[in-house]
């Protein structure tokens, strides 16, 4: 057989670089895909819509009275304490969902199609993150509405917006972890189970739902290093007042660290998955 090889076509076609505009276009097309999914299957928004409602009502009315007392007030006092914390929790919860969704997506042939298209190999992941951030914003908005309805006082609007921004930023860095799980684990159930295992201790072993000073020393060590505590302390400080600087830096450090470590791993795993 002939071994002659066809010459590469047009030079323009041969340029392997992808311009920032092209990246944006690709991510846009993939975001549209995910949004169409939601339109096709509105139930997939249940978690984003209902979780903030249920958690707010549960915590405020079940624990509000007694924890509020220990804070030197009542349920009203607890509302001011827990709503900023729930914002951190929401970011974490939505971030977990990205792994499950992505894993299911991977079981299908369409991923092979994406991976044989001349697009940046991170685009599929970035699009997923963009959509989850949108869901996070929806969840956070609902959280604030319910929060106000149960008595949360918004005293500091810039602080509120800064908190939302920070939660979303931190949430996006968490998503990379769950994307790695989503790509590497065999099925969506395992991803969900794994997510739950990570989620529960981090959420409850933190300052989200109650102050940590009554916890035993070893647990306080854990909560002190728990990034969710840092995030919750920061949102609380920004929204209702209190020290912010230290916890803000800790949160930002975690955000940067997680993204820098996990994003390349996720993209690499995605690209080399066979």
């Amino acid at each position, binding site marked *: 057989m002939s071994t002659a*090889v*066809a010459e590469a076509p047009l030079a323009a076609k041969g340029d*392997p670089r992808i311009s920032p505009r092209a990246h944006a276009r690709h991510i846009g*097309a*993939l975001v549209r895909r995910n949004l169409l999914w939601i339109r096709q299957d509105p139930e997939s928004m249940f978690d984003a819509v209902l979780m903030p409602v249920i958690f707010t009502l549960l915590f405020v009315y079940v624990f509000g009275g007694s924890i509020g007392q220990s804070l030197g007030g009542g349920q009203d006092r607890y509302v001011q304490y827990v709503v900023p914390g729930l914002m951190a929790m929401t970011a974490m919860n939505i971030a977990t969902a990205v792994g499950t969704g992505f894993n299911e997506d991977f079981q*299908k042939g369409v991923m092979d199609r994406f*991976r*044989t*298209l001349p697009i940046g190999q991170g685009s599929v992941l970035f699009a997923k993150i963009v959509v989850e951030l949108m869901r996070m914003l929806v969840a956070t908005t609902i959280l604030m509405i319910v929060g106000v309805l149960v008595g949360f006082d918004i005293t500091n609007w810039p602080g509120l917006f800064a908190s939302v921004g920070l939660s979303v930023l931190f949430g996006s860095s968490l998503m990379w972890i769950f994307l790695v799980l989503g790509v590497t684990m065999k099925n969506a159930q395992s991803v969900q189970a794994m997510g739950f295992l990570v989620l529960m201790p981090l959420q409850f072993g933190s300052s989200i739902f109650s102050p940590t000073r009554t916890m035993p020393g070893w647990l306080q060590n854990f909560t002190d290093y728990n990034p969710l505590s840092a995030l919750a302390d920061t949102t609380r400080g920004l929204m209702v007042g209190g020290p912010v600087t230290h916890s803000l830096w800790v949160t930002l450090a975690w955000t940067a660290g997680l993204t820098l470590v996990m994003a390349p791993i996720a993209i690499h795993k995605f690209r080399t998955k066979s």
Partner: protein
Amino acid sequence: MGAGTLMGMTRIDKNPDSGARSAVSVRGLVKHYGETKALDGVDLDVREGTVLGVLGPNGAGKTTLVRILSTLITPDAGQATVAGYNVLTQPRQLRRVIGLTGQYASVDEKLPGWENLYMIGRLLDLPRKDARRRADELLERFSLTEAAKRPASTYSGGMRRRLDLAASMIGHPSVLYLDEPTTGLDPRTRNEVWKEVKRMVADGATVLLTTQYMEEAEQLASELTVIDRGKVIASGRIDELKARVGGRTLRIRPVDPLELRPLASLFDELGLTGLAASVVDTETGTVLVPILSDEQLTAVVGAVTARGITIGSISTELPSLDEVFLSLTGHKASAPQDAAPTRAYEEVSA
């Protein structure tokens, strides 16, 4: 038309592709999965504008080959270029010129057909307007316009496969991989897919087709590479491969059925037939003469003419691809046996 034409048509071209350029060129490709040698040193070429059939049973390494050539996995050793681009060092350029239709339809089932095509158009950097137009155009071409707005999950198997083919065509790829494009489809749907593939080839696409159906290779491919357990065991033109495996059978129908037996005994008397004796098939009114060479063929036809027997029709038959596979590998291909036996005649009326 006479015997000369017949000879010409059955002549085996020893070097059919001299000078043609390869759109796909594979050298010494190796991919191991633990102990399993999915590919164990595969060489092959697909000439520009042709269809190469890669035939082999399940697990022969066909899909691994396609996945390497479409940059989904990397080989352990060996080289491969597609349209001049190296699969290892130029994956992005390569992705721009290929289209892939897998055994499992790679479309987004939750999205409507139109949205699937539009999305891929945008991912291939078509401006919005062009992406829209291309989606409309391809849905029309693949008779999916009616179903454009329905989620692909509501499509039948054949519709999904057609949508998948349409998706592969959006970027006008110069090289198309069809990985078992009709596996699991019913015969009618299979014919639809074949029709579309033939059209793509007529439009100038180079196609690498993997299949485990002999009939499919014969329908679509001009050349064939037979692989088994990760190794190429034969390659060449389809008729050439068949000729290599076994002799041909000459089928002669005299106008007068009473001439059947005299004809048969004539051939045997003259010792003109191959290894086996000639056979009379009364049902079709033909004599079957096994022959080994073109010279024998000429002698048989000459003897018939000398006897003054009028011939109604004359044809040569090649062995079926099932037989080809069996004699090349020593075992049967694992394709289901429901496919009709393949036929390849070059028929000439006298």
